[in-house]
């Protein structure tokens, strides 16, 4: 009976998984096709042979290694910086219970809902004033704030439900506020912080508009901006775009796969305790 009920769920999951993977497959398929083959047989045909020139040409053309370093640097700094900032904010709001908490949280949600298009000009003028225009640091700072807005909102509600007994026990043991945060709250919430880190990293990795506007020199550009080079005014190089998309996605997927393991380990460790 139970097995019978499970099969439809399994089937639905398989269908969903196929639907999710299909676009990636199409991208991978076209990444290894020659432009002539693509034009002749369309995007859904199977490639006749492995054509890797598209990937190699793209790598050369945009100096992809440098873009990877930039993206890792920016996304990594943002993930760590935003997570630290979120933890500090959320500690004050969730455990410290500062006055006017709901308003502060509402403000953070609002900041999070602000479309990035609205930020473009203010961020441009401010960064020009302080001499940070066309530097990676400008993008890092902006995204630390943007991501931390969401992180604060989420982590505050997590800490709002944090067992008060643990905090009080630590206080009785003589821990000050700083020690409570770093020795009690952070270790216990490690899985949540880990999830935030992964999200921040991947979200920042995929950001397009602000890096496009702020990173002018090719040496400072990120992977997602570099992909834009291929979109011409009237023409597009479909196979090379696919090759580039594949190159752009792979690092984020690898990152996720690595941290996926540490995440589950962290959650399991918490469960035993």
């Amino acid at each position, binding site marked *: 009976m139970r097995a019978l009920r499970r099969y439809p769920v399994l089937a639905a999951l398989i269908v969903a998984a196929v639907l999710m993977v299909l676009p990636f497959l199409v991208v991978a398929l076209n990444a290894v096709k020659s432009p002539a083959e693509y034009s002749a047989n*369309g995007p859904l045909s199977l490639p006749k042979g492995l054509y890797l020139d598209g990937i190699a040409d793209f790598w050369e053309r945009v100096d992809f290694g440098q873009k990877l370093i930039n993206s890792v640097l920016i996304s*990594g*700094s943002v993930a760590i*910086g935003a997570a630290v900032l979120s933890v500090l904010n959320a500690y004050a709001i969730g455990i410290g219970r500062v006055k006017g908490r709901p308003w502060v949280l509402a403000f953070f949600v609002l900041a999070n809902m602000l479309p990035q298009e609205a930020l473009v000009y203010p961020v441009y003028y401010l960064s020009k004033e302080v001499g940070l225009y066309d530097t990676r*640091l400008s993008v890092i700072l902006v995204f630390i704030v943007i991501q931390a807005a969401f992180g604060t909102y989420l982590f505050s509600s997590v800490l709002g439900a944090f067992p008060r007994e643990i905090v009080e*026990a630590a206080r009785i043991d003589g821990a000050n506020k700083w020690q409570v945060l770093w020795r009690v709250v952070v*270790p216990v919430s490690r899985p949540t912080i880990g999830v935030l880190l992964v999200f921040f990293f991947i979200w920042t990795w995929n950001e397009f508009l602000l890096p496009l506007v702020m990173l002018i*020199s090719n040496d*400072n550009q990120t992977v997602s901006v570099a992909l834009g080079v291929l979109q011409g005014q009237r*023409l597009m190089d479909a196979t090379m775009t696919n090759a580039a998309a594949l190159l752009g996605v792979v690092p984020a997927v690898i990152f996720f796969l690595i941290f996926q393991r540490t995440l589950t380990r962290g959650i399991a460790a918490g469960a035993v305790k």
Partner: protein
Amino acid sequence: MLTARKRTGRLTKRTGTVIAAAVAGALVLAGCGGGGDEAGDGKTLTLWHYEAPNGAMGAAWKQAIEEFKKSHPGVTVKFEEKGFEQIRKTASMVLGSDSAPDLMEYNKGNATTGLLSKQGLLTDLSPEVTKRGWDKPLSPGVRTTSRYDAQGVMGSGKWFGVPNYAEYTMVFYNKTLFKKHKVEVPTTFGEFTAALRAFKSKGITPLANAGAEYPAQQYVYQLALSQADRSWVDAYEQYKGKPDFHDAAWTYGATTFADWVKKGWIAKSSSGTKAEDAGAAFIAGKYPMFFSGSWWFGRFKSEIKDEWGTFPFPGSKLTLGSGGNLWVVPKGAKNKQLAYDFIDITMKKGIQNTLGNKGGVPVAADPAAITDPKAKSLIQDFTAYSDGGGLAFYPDWPVPGFYDTLVSETQKLMTGDAKPDAYLDALEKAYEAGAPKG
């Protein structure tokens, strides 16, 4: 609980230090990566363009960089390939900062180069143009997009850009399909419609089209142009007189286009397709004809396996076209002299001939040096239009944001949701709302 806390406590101390170090390291690294600030020492030329390296312009300009290096020993050329979107979205911001290049490719038109010139972000090139004679090879139709008045409207005033190439529309046709179905290549409009009918009767949709992008509106505009004259174009594009959207030309364009869709000469199902799809379908030999611009030429040349050729749209003295994108020199450029020298090189015969042989439409090539027969006829057809004042620009130019109106209204015309009259009403309304008054 207590032991657990102790254990994790030690752990976090260590990770805390690691995190702090990582953040500090990242910030320091990021801080060093400022854009190099070269002063105006005449030793570096910073150059941006957004042409693919294997296209006609990309190849010609690569050669120009080599020649520039030869004639300017000791000068470094800092070339950066940009994305079209990046330049389009950020040009006004970049040009207002210290990071502006010395020379860049930019889109012609009121909403682009015109706007930047009005904002005072571009250098007036008029003195250099006269001194170096860049205007000599350019026909009046090509010059239009280089000059902008104080309001940023093209056609008159100072020179803010210099084009290296031009573009125009024509009918691309698949010779193999014409031969296979025994259809003659048309030279008059009557023969053209006869050819369309012949293909349709064999079950083939004769014309490739893309309703979701520029091709559909270009069919309509070309059909209207076939019934129009120069003053009609000037009224519509340059606000010299009030255009009448219900005159004979517009009415003919809209009704004929709707009629062709009804007859199946243009597939109704193409109302939602992109230009890329239409081009790819033509390359694959699914359609015998495609009316579009010279920007496809290089790609068709390298990718079409069948025999193919081009002919001018039959029965029309006017066609869509203009000067190509411009070289502009930002106001804040630090090495303007080098930028002028580079433009000069790109206007010389050597670079222009390369551009022509690679499938571009050069503005100052030596006709005898163009060896490829297809490229030769491409350039000859262009010269005929250009000398005869036949370049009629593009339908979306007069009004900012008009492109989207044209796309969506033409889609309605294709699907039959709008009759030609209602279609023209909608265009008139958008045009009136957006065109400069006075």
